[in-house]
């Protein structure tokens, strides 16, 4: 499953980071590594951004980005 498809309130584990180049590095820097817990907190205006709890921090990602994260 992709992170973008996970419903609000659920917690999932990162399986794979399939982004490339800069985005991939950025994801890694934020702690989206294999096995990391990600909690889906909230969708923002127009469902454009979603807030996730990643490694204790609140990070907002667009759907265009979160579809690169495969989760279990």
């Amino acid at each position, binding site marked *: 499953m992709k992170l973008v498809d996970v419903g609000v309130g659920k917690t999932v584990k990162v399986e794979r980071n399939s982004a490339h180049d800069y985005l991939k590095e950025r994801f*890694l820097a*934020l702690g989206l590594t294999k*096995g990391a817990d990600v909690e889906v907190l*909230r969708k923002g*205006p127009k469902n454009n951004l979603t807030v996730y709890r990643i490694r204790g921090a609140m990070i907002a*990602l*667009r759907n265009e980005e979160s579809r690169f994260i495969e989760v279990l």
Partner: protein
Amino acid sequence: MGLTTQSLRLESLRDIYEIEKGDKQYVIALAGNPNTGKSTVFNYLTGLAQHTGNWPGKTVASARGQFKYKNNEYIMVDLPGSYSLFTASKDEEVTRDFLCYGNFDAVVVVADATCLERNLNLVFQISKLTKKVILCINLIDEAKKKNITIDRQGLQNELNIPVVLTAARSGQGMNELKKAIENVSFKQTESDELKNLSYLQYESETREKITEQNYNYANELKQKYVKEDINKLNRDKKIDDIVTSKKFGIPIMLALLGLIFWITIQGANMPSQILAELLFGLQYKLNEIFIGLGVNDFLRGIVIDGMYGTLAWVVSVMLPPMAIFFPLFTLFEDLGYLPRVAFNLDHLFKKAGAHGKMCLSMCMGFGCNAAGVIGCRIIDSPRERLIAIITNNLVPCNGRFPLIIVLSAAFFAFTGSFLDSIIPALSITLIVLVGVSATLAVSYLLTKTLLKGVPSTFTLELPPYRAPQVGRIIYTSIIDRTVFVLLRAAAVAAPAGAVTWLLANIYVGELSILIHAANFLEPLGRAIGLDGFILIAFIAGFPANEIVMPVLLMAYMSTGALTDYESIDSLRQILMSCGWTVLTAINVMLFSLLHWPCSTTLLTIKKETGSLKWTFAAFIIPTGIAFLVCFVTASVYRLIW
């Protein structure tokens, strides 16, 4: 994204990052994730007033300061916040390169006590580069509020580097930090000089593995040494459920903006009157003294009516709204609200083809557009950075806000009821919205034409809310702003006042030069709902927008419409007697909002883009919009009136 180690580049980087130091002087680098309070630590140690704010990316160029401890001097370098040494946005590169090539004696890595797991990754990375690392776990007061406890000794033993717990805002733990800095700086070993740069040159896959290991270890350390209270952690979530919700996010934002303006207008009235009475009373006295001394009328006119008069206008009319607006704005910045604004508005920026973080550089523009333009460095993609730079001027800065505030207070408080305090606040909010709409429209058009492309990727951290340091904010922003405005006023307003007075009093034929010029510009001014004098004032305001209103008033008064300034209402009367209508007021506000950037901003744009072409674009685009919008409003107004 590995580093090139060609010796040439290496040498040049060493030159850039070599900091000169003497005997008993040590260079200390401050690194850390964005928004961990590095600048607060820096300010506490050095006593400098580096601007702090609760959003990632605030420090975009490194700041420097010094402090003394036990007869030694320490040169602090505050590096831009960085999540990782592997990734590099423009500001993160500064941090990485300094840590690789700088001649520091110790690195203090500042970490957020409430988010230690994420912060540790960078600590591990830096520890691979150098052994001279100190871990400063900051915001320990915030952690305490959230019932988070950290086992310092346990972490120190495990990591084998000095660990200090601090709350830089109150000074807690700062002595321990100084001691740790001394200890590490004194311990110079040969092997320390050789930095393990190969660590940054691994292939992508290896980097992924390393990061994974780092984070697993960080998680393990967190489980072992950090105790959390899950109920307290949910406080921010509850606030954000409302503040960033689909329904209420944007309305709450607009209401807060309106509230700030309302407080500003209400609060500025009294001090403005008192200052005006004082300063213009003094002008009257000074004139009498000069006359008594038999000073030449011409000289007296230049000095008292020209220079002093303009200064007095700047101080009495422009200063009070500034001194109130900026502390209020900083309060929200400290609280951590700005990233929420970026969150709520991202869908609009995305549609316009701009970067979501442009919101943050725009917020910096409220303070000063030149600072906003530099702030655009937080945007990685060159295309979007250029868009952000070109449009930054469409946010009214420090120098233009008071004009907008004063005019709306003067012209839109006419009902004589309680609405008088609300309508001006609403109209200023509207003006800001016009600026934001123009920003989005220009971004959209640029994306479709000159700067084609798709919005780049975007990750936004919503930092924890923090109680603002109210006392410090009020103190520093009033003192900073006051000093800043007064200096700028003295530097620009006084000479501009003298020149305006001269132009108004040197006659060519029947009329003064000023009136000749105003007459020349009159048709153009009229076409867009302004007049010749107003255009002259805006041109005179090119070095600093603060002086537009004062120069305009001077110019008007020199034509004989002399009224004593006592209150905001007398300002309206002065302007009405010079032919102003509500349309003039609206269009002056719009023109001020949209017109060309000031000279400082243009120079900064030239520096940041390195291109005359884009600097020209940043001049001509807003100017074109200003003329167009004012022309439209003037035409509509004439049709319906």
